[in-house]
């Protein structure tokens, strides 16, 4: 909600600066951003009482003297003769109607009304609707204006379970379905109560006689409707968050006053229906409890004085909560009020003692498995739980985000296969992935959960000269896994590539095992690796194609070998993504070492060019040229 600093400052004695008010609002828990002297407020959903200028001023009254007493029309009102029936008194226990006829429509607004539109950059509509919008901004109570000449017949408020088309005052057609609280005129829906009025009975620029409806709707009757019908409605936003059930009469009188300040009124009549009394919340005064909750030592006088400033009525033994504060019911609620006023940051820390719980081993086994897989060069993946295609025992999502997320996945391997193909398309030639997750299925209406480990791998066994020429196979994986965890059965299998949209021919090896099937022997595995303890600053990745260069060196002076290898492996360049030794041959007969390096290049800005690669290779070659005893056979 947008509230102008100017409108706040005008009603605060002492004219505090915008920064000072901003600090106070944060202290009170009212998040906001400031743009062009306008507070763009983001209130928590329990603070419907703050959704107005007066509401915010009321909260700021713990720090400042504020004015929230706008003038109202105080004369006795003639009884309105209206044919109205409320069949939903439980969800609309209070409603008032005002009928008002004016002589002329004013051509100019008073400063306060004009400023509302100018300062908040809002469009004017028509005289009565403009006043309705202004009052909603000023005191938080939405009202609805009907053109009184269009209201002929029986007006009914009812929660109806009926399908009917309805055209809003913004000319949007909506099909009402299921239960809706509506106003009916002669059995036809003219207003989606608390959300938006209809076009057929709305006011126009020529309307001189208005019927103003001012109601208290319970939030449960309104909630979810604006989202359901895709309607942006300030009224529903307020009703969903609770409006003051005791402000309808005052709102009607404020409406008359504003009209009166703009033009001559020919006729006024009003009626107020109170079907149920508002329940007053009373809480015992207990300063010890408040201090215990917050961890402070404030006096009862200060406590009560602060609550009084917020509009709470103080009696000998209890506190009466004002009607607009539906969020206050308990001592903890009152403690939060006091803590906000003190300022959360001004409450001192008290040393906490934590009762020692038992050391859990819920995740010990799977953590060990993860470290084992880490040692074997596998990367952990976390996939979405949603899939587009299910099986006969899949759990279906009633309200999926889209058709690709209609079910909960019933295995992990299919997601891992997608991950593998995704990385193959990105020129990865050695891919080893795993995932540990719960799988949910349903059988005979019973939901079953199984914790699984899935592994998938394909391509080269590794990026080193020993593994470079070895392809990942069932035998290869079984052998290295058995060596480390001899008593576990991973049951690797080969996935068929035929149905996959890929040109890569490497075998895909996978397995999916219930975590419960692993034995406690896993816990005795001595891992070589451990996850990083410090946090790595991530470098954005490039999705552009990479380029590979292989260079094979012949070394005859072995004294330079170690230094040379170190230089190449440590060589850094912004285009050089990876370097490793893919070939090593000791030719004892010729007294020669042959060593092959693979260089993988990629640019973050554009597809890497031959020239860019050559420039980097030339830097390496310049270094090599200066060392006697190292050559690249055939390199010019």
């Amino acid at each position, binding site marked *: 909600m947008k509230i102008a600093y100017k409108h706040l400052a005008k009603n605060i004695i002492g004219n505090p600066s915008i920064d000072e008010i901003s600090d106070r609002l*944060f202290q009170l828990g009212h*998040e906001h951003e400031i743009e062009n002297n306008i507070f763009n407020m983001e209130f*928590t959903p329990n603070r419907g009482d703050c959704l107005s200028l007066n509401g915010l001023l009321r909260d700021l009254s713990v720090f400042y003297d504020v004015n929230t007493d706008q003038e109202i029309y105080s004369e006795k009102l003639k009884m309105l003769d209206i044919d109205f029936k409320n069949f939903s008194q439980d969800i609309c226990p209070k409603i008032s109607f005002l009928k008002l006829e004016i002589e002329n429509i004013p051509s100019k607004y008073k400063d306060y009304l004009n400023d509302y539109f100018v300062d908040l950059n809002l469009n004017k509509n028509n005289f009565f609707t403009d006043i309705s919008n202004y009052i909603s901004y000023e005191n938080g109570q939405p009202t609805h204006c009907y053109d009184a000449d269009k209201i002929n017949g029986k007006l009914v408020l009812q929660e109806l379970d009926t399908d009917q088309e309805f055209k809003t005052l913004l000319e949007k057609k909506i099909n009402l379905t299921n239960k809706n609280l509506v106003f009916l005129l002669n059995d036809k829906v003219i207003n989606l109560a608390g959300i938006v009025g209809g076009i057929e009975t709305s006011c126009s620029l020529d309307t001189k006689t208005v019927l103003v409806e001012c109601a208290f709707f319970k939030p449960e009757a309104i909630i*979810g409707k604006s989202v359901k019908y895709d309607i942006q409605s300030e009224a529903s936003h307020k009703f969903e968050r609770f409006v003051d059930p005791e402000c309808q009469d005052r709102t009607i009188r404020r409406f008359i006053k504003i009209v009166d300040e703009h033009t001559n009124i020919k006729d006024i009549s009003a009626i107020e229906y109170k079907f149920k009394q508002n329940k007053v919340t009373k809480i015992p005064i207990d300063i010890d409890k408040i201090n*215990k909750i*917050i*961890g*402070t030592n404030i006096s009862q006088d200060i406590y009560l004085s602060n609550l009084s400033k917020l509009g709470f009525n103080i009696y000998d033994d209890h506190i009466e909560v004002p009607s607009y504060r539906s969020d206050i019911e*308990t001592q903890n*609620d009152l*403690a*939060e009020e006091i*803590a*906000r006023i003190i300022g*959360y*940051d001004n409450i*001192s*820390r*008290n*040393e*906490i003692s*934590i*009762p*020692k*719980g038992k050391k*859990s081993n*819920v*995740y010990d086994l799977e953590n060990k498995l*993860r470290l084992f*897989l*880490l*040692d074997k*060069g596998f990367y952990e993946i976390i996939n*979405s*739980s949603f899939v587009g295609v299910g099986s006969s025992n899949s*759990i279906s*999502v*009633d309200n999926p*985000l889209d058709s690709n997320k209609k079910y909960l996945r019933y295995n992990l391997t299919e997601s891992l296969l997608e991950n593998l193909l*995704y*990385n193959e398309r*990105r020129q990865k030639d*050695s*891919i*080893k992935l795993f995932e540990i997750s719960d799988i949910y299925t*349903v059988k005979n*209406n019973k939901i079953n959960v199984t914790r699984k480990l899935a592994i998938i791998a394909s391509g080269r066994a*590794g990026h080193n000269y*020993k593994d470079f020429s070895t392809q990942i196979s069932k035998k290869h994986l079984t052998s290295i896994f058995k060596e480390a965890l001899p008593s576990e059965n991973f049951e690797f299998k080969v996935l068929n590539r035929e149905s996959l949209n890929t040109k890569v021919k490497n075998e895909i090896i996978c397995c999916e095992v219930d975590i419960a099937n692993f034995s406690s022997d896993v816990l005795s595995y001595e891992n070589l*690796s451990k*996850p*990083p303890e410090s946090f*790595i*600053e*991530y470098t954005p990745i490039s999705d552009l194609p990479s380029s590979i260069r292989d260079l094979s060196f012949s070394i005859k002076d*072995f004294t330079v070998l170690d230094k040379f290898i170190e230089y190449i492996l440590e060589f850094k360049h912004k285009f050089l*993504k990876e370097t490793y030794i893919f070939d090593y041959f000791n030719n*004892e007969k010729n007294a020669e*070492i042959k*060593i092959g390096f693979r260089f993988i290049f990629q640019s973050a800005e554009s597809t890497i060019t031959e020239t860019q690669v050559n420039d980097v290779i030339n830097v390496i070659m310049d270094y090599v040229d200066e060392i006697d005893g190292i050559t690249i056979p055939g390199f010019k």
Partner: protein
Amino acid sequence: MSSTKDISPPKIIKDKGAIHPINNMKDSIMNLLVSFGFEIIDGPEIETEEFNFDMLNIKKTHPARQMHDTFYVENKSNLLRTHTSPVQIRGMLEKCPPLAFVSGGKVYRKDDDATHLPMFHQIEGILVDENVSFAQLKDLIYKIVHALFGEDVKLRFRPSYFPFTEPSAEVDILSNEGKWLEILGCGLVNPIVLDNCNIDSNYYSGLAFGLGIERIAMLKHGVRDIREFYKSNLDFLCQFK
């Protein structure tokens, strides 16, 4: 010049894999909390409305309960948990105070953009004992935040609203760029929640906190788009070795 027989071949550099950065962050935070004395508990991702909402004082009228915020499954008989708090409810129903639990895992909400995903990870902790105060909650939060972001980090507490805590707060840290960044929510356990779990709220009080693991991981690693974590791109994952 020596013979090639005397030359040792280059050391074979075995490829090491990586734990997913989100799980690594989860483990770090869980280990920290366990070192404080919290006990790890676990619970299902498919929950009932009773445990996910009712027991936590999230009323039928709360927007979170609408179809546009929560994923319902199997003809609305169950839902995908929207937070890890139901695990704490299950824990409190099983054990009497004093207690201190922490739980972490996947949670689900109907969101999908650069900063929100329909599936993300949370860690939540709860402590119930005699005379637990907001001032003690602050002490615990300072300890957690200092352990995660260093002793020098500046933090602020802002009043907020969660139906299951009262008073409630959100905690921000000041970034190097001078911007306040929200990192966690916390509060004193609403006495209604304790009573729902058969814990006498006249005698016991509690504190609770929850944080989004992706949020913390994004801040710690400098990742700008949450979706990067779930693309399974090896170029991304290999940076977290």
